């Protein structure tokens, strides 16, 4: 039998379906105030459940934990299989955390159809949870697609830009386009499984037990790559991102920029299932070049942006380049750094989107050409803004440093030239953020700004403080987080080293855990 750690209560099912049930229940609520309170309560309970999982999580092992397994389409080998391991557990926590902040943010800012809005947000939370908790490929795919529904409505109905309808559709179509390829990739994996075991399976753990011929691996790798690249988005598949994030509402931008589902997929599926392809030198070189291009391309475009949200979009693309090169460094430091960096972006980049929202609420725009000297009027906002910005540019002591340092360290060891090129991103990042900060926040107070600018409201303050706490916690004392992810990262690297074609040996931690049939 598979060695998996189970938990008495189906906590993961609860994490996925509780927000859905909550969203449905919201339907019955009438007035706006109660809707908000109910939504906050639901998101809060979800966060508590997520924290229970985090606390109950056994660190330092690659084992699947809190496992739930039920049959779904047995003849196809599709199962309802949920679990968390070191790769997914922090994403689960981050999703719950950000949703609470989203609800807080929306409290004073969303007045249009609040009921539908909170239902969409909770629906989004449920589907994103599903993505991170699914171990079955088809189950994963279903959530991957379902996630588009609430996203579509969020962008289209509550977007702030005039072209939000276009942006919403573009987002959906791009992701769909990618996921078709991914689905074919999944199906090919299952077919390969059938060749060996005479039965279909879409279960990650079962698929791991079967070697995949190298040629097939390469094809499947690129198919899955397309699906992930569009979603992530990896340069040059990113062109939906500026539209979705600039036209869409802040909560959607926070989710899309903060929760890195695309790059998560590499760690979850590509690396373990396709180790020979993932470490193939030509594939690694191609992906590394895309990553490095993203770092510099994103950063240089970010420098010249006047609109802060567009700046953040390209900063996101640049940061994602870091994540990609860390992953494809294929060593412990790089992958660990990427994983922690993906989480970090959920605090820093997503946090900066909140602050873009705070500014937008006050000024009606976030164009640097029309505002300066905000520090004078909004000192608290300016301070927290700076903390988030420093985290984003990777100042030591903030979480951003831990991720970037490990990534660069990993990339440098893969090949020094990767590290040497990527390190320029560190310089450009300081340039684009500080130049914006210098013009928007510093400088003399611009005439024509609204006379009554209010500094942070208590709810905004709560958002800023909770983000800052996480930023400093991970920055100063990251070991709890590193310990949680270490076991799984180690296992993935070993799997990459040994490959799927090698005969499984019992002493191999990953194989022995997953494949003792």
């Amino acid at each position, binding site marked *: 039998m598979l060695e998996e750690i189970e938990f008495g209560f189906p906590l993961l099912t609860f994490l996925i379906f509780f927000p859905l049930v909550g969203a449905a229940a919201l339907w019955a609520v009438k007035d706006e105030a109660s809707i908000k309170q109910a939504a906050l309560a639901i998101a809060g309970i979800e966060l508590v459940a997520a924290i229970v999982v985090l606390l109950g999580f056994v660190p330092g092992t690659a084992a699947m934990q809190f496992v739930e397994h039920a049959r779904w389409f047995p003849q196809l080998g599709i199962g309802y299989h949920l679990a968390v391991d070191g790769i997914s557990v922090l994403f689960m926590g981050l999703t719950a955390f950000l949703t609470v902040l989203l609800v807080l943010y929306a409290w004073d800012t969303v007045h249009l159809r609040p009921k539908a809005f909170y239902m969409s947000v909770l629906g989004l939370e449920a589907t994103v949870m599903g993505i991170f908790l699914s171990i079955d490929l088809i189950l994963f795919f279903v959530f991957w697609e379902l996630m588009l529904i609430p996203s579509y409505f969020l962008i289209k109905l509550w977007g702030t830009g005039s072209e939000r309808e276009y942006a919403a559709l573009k987002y959906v179509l791009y992701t769909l386009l990618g996921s078709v390829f991914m689905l074919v990739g999944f199906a090919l994996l299952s077919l390969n499984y059938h060749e060996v075991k005479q039965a279909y399976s879409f279960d990650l753990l079962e698929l791991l037990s079967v070697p995949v011929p190298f040629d097939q691996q390469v094809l499947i790798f690129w198919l899955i790559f397309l699906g992930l690249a569009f979603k992530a988005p990896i340069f040059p598949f990113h062109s939906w991102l500026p539209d979705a994030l600039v036209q869409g509402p802040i909560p959607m931008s926070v989710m899309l920029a903060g929760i890195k589902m695309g790059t998560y997929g590499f760690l979850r599926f590509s690396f373990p299932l396709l180790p020979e392809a993932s470490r193939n030198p030509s594939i690694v070189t191609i992906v590394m070049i895309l990553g490095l291009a993203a770092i510099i391309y994103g950063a240089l475009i970010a420098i010249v942006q006047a609109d802060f949200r567009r700046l953040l979009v390209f900063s996101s693309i640049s940061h994602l380049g870091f994540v990609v090169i860390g992953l494809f460094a294929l060593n412990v430091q790089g992958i660990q750094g990427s994983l922690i960096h993906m989480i970090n972006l959920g605090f820093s980049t997503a946090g900066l989107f909140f602050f873009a929202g705070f500014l937008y609420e006050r000024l009606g725009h976030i164009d640097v050409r029309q505002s300066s000297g905000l520090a004078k009027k909004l000192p608290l906002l300016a301070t927290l803004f700076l903390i988030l910005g420093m985290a984003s540019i990777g100042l030591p002591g903030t979480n951003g440093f831990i991720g970037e340092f*490990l990534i660069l360290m990993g990339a440098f060891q893969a090949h020094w030239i990767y590290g040497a090129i990527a390190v320029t991103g560190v310089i450009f990042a300081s340039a684009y953020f500080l130049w914006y900060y210098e013009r928007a926040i510093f400088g003399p107070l611009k005439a024509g700004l609204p006379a009554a600018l209010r500094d942070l409201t208590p709810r905004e303050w709560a958002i800023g403080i909770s983000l800052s706490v996480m930023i400093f916690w991970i920055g100063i004392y990251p070991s709890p987080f590193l310990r949680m992810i270490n076991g799984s990262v180690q296992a993935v690297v070993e799997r990459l080293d040994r490959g799927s074609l090698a005969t499984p040996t019992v002493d191999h931690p990953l194989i022995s855990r997953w494949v003792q049939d």
Partner: protein
Amino acid sequence: MFELLVLLIPLFPLLAVLVNGLFGHRYSHEVAARLAYGSVFLSFLCALAVAADVVADPQPREVVAYSWIFGGDLSIDLAFLIDPLTTVMLLVVTGVGFLIHVYSVGYMHGEEGFTRFFTYMNLFMVSMLLLVMGNNYAVLFIGWEGVGLCSYLLIGYYYDKVSAAKAATKAFVMNRIGDAGFLLAIFLIFSHFRTLDYTTVLAQASELSTGMATAIALCLLVGAVGKSAQLPLYTWLPDAMEGPTPVSALIHAATMVTAGVYMVVRNHAIYDLAPIAMTAVGIIGGTTALFAATIGLVQNDIKRVLAYSTVSQLGYMFLACGVGAYIAAIFHLVTHAFFKALLFLAAGSVIHALGGEQDIRKMGGLRQKIPITYAVFMIGTIAIAGIPPLAGFWSKDEILAHAFVQHHYGLYLLGAIGAVLTSFYMFRLTFLTFYGPSRVDPHVAHHIHESPKVMTVPLMILAALSIVGGFLGVPPEHGLLHSFLHPVAASAGGAAHESSTGLVVGLATFATLTAFAGLGLAYYLYVVRPHMADEWARRTSGLYTLLLNKYYVDEFYDRIAVEPCKRLGDMWDWADRHIIDRVVQGINHMTDKGAAAATWIEKHIIYGGLNIIGYANHLAAWSWRKLQSGMVHHYATIIVIGLAVLVHLLLFWLTGATPGSYAMR
């Protein structure tokens, strides 16, 4: 006990940062100030206690706080290394830092951002202490970037001034260029040694190949050049003078900018193996020393003259490292901390007296009006000019003597010419400020007053240190400082190259004479014949303009780096909006068709075959319609669910097919 003392050193200012930062608005400025300088004073006391321990037993000791970053074979502790080098730096940082904190209480009195100022200053102390205390490169880097942040915040202290805001950004970004080099050095070190702890790395350094040692040393040098404002990354430092004057004294003269020197000395085991890197350090130091001094000759802002002088003096320290005179470098670092902090704070006192005036063309004749400030400024000037027996003479002379004795005649020449210029521009500054007729704005003139005790007492202490500080290194090569630092900073080549006493005395005499030459020329030009200087400036107007405009280096960097980056960004931005988007829109049309096809299949085939899902789809669409009162296109819903259905269909179809025939090769 020892561990606790070590941990407390950075902890005290950290506590003050937290308390003042979070609750500073709730109590008076006075309380905030007391917390701020009190915490630094406590750190200083701890540092003294630690120093006493180290003097008794110079064996290096490590204190581990906790495990910071780990993964694979990488393991980095937040840990401290206490050895004689760290001890010297600790005493300078906390001691001079404390005096500057006290002075700031008077200087910043009544400022709106008083508490903010002290929070940043204390945060700087924490970072600087981490920098000098860390036992590995990563902790050094925390401090390294931390001091950069504080420098940024304090340069931008008057953030509503555009020039201050710009200078802050410039300082941070230029420092980051250096930091990137430093990061590469760290990665190289880790790749080679699989650890970042100094103890292991430096002990095994001798196993490095020359090529690898050179690579590491040069990458470290890039970092040092950025932080210590050497050629070619020095241009941020003069602009940094936008910060309040105590900041210039603490960060941009006495401590932060010397971090590069500290780093090179700390890693001298690696530099000793890399002659090319050593030469680079020496050349950068020597040319910077001279180059910055020439600019200093003609500047009219009292703080800018001092800023260029700082760049130049840091150049001497690099020069010292370049010729292997590491102890001399640290010696000069220490004396420079005394007299440059003194000069900046005294300049601050002048500025304070004149209500903010910094232009020396609007000063003059201040000797009688602010006598204490004048006296200490004069002491600082004599010290930096290298006139014995004040501090600067001993340390600078030791550096130049080293260069000469080790046959680095080119570097010696650069340093010697720089020394004449130093003496000249410093006395020029003193004479223009304190001598001659008053050129002070009449509105300001009758407000001129000596600074309060809280400012003058630190000045007097620093003046005393500037007078006697040099005796730490007397007799040359065998002073107190030398024997203390010998275990950690002695050059591998063996510093004891015995040179004849005659040569040493000869060089010292020559150095003294050149210092007096500079003094004499300045006296003649600015006191005896005040119009001569203008005359000379007119006659050499080309050169004068070139110097006044700082060789147009800023403009040059704008042209070759800043502008191209922005242009490239603009170009790519345009391409991103127009080209990449258009390409993808092509695909978009295709997907539109694909989506339409999917919808068609869904409507005509799947609804028939899989009623339940069709109904579910209808139900969902209906509920959304209901929910949005018809506002919503259910286009996307249909696509998504349709695709999910297609998946099912595909899989059912696949189950029917023979896997063997279908499977790809």
